[in-house]
């Protein structure tokens, strides 16, 4: 069964540095999402992406965050000037259309030191 893959599984970065989290959605999917889960808390929506542009973003997704689909297969989340509070599990998800369930990757654990 096709799946969403995320790399790396764990990323450790110094505060203030930039980090890029990578995702390869399921190949025929058109809708892409990033979610965040701080340890012990609920999963929170960050951003949705369709047709090469952001469809919706939450208040968490401030101007330090950006997303890109550079080559038609990868979907990346970049965080500039990282803060301690960015430490969390980041999940990428994709769906074939807006009516289909979202399939999640295994997540990237981001640790900011």
């Amino acid at each position, binding site marked *: 069964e096709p799946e969403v893959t995320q790399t790396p599984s764990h990323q450790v970065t110094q505060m203030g540095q930039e980090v890029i989290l990578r995702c390869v959605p399921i190949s025929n999917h058109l*809708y892409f*999402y990033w*979610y965040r*889960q701080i340890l012990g*808390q*609920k*999963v*929170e*929506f960050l951003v*949705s992406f*369709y*047709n090469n542009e952001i*469809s*919706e973003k939450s208040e968490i997704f401030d101007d330090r965050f950006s997303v890109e689909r550079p080559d038609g297969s990868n979907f990346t989340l970049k965080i500039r000037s990282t803060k301690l509070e960015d430490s969390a*599990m980041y*999940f990428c*998800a994709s*769906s074939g*259309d*807006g*009516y289909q*369930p*979202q*399939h*999640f990757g*295994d*997540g990237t*654990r981001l640790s900011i030191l």
Partner: protein
Amino acid sequence: AQTVTQSQPEMSVQEAETVTLSCTYDTSESDYYLFWYKQPPSRQMILVIRQEAYKQQNATENRFSVNFQKAAKSFSLKISDSQLGDAAMYFCACQTATGANSKLTFGKGITLSVRP
């Protein structure tokens, strides 16, 4: 905006028994989808079951079934014949829009333990 509430932080069930996990939600939309996702210790997010709000029939998926009470905005998950592998965090989620803005709103989750 929609909200999802899971008021029980944890539950425990004996192996082979049945357990019900509760969830309530609130939305002003007439059309929406409800989901239960499972998150084992590996922290993957695995879709368990999905319910379309316009369908009156409760969704079932093998040992998993839901009790969808639309008027009460309640969406509980029943796990029958519980297995050790069912031990995980379970999240209830709501999706009120479709297309490009179809984000999921999650509850806080419930930790289910299964006693051998």
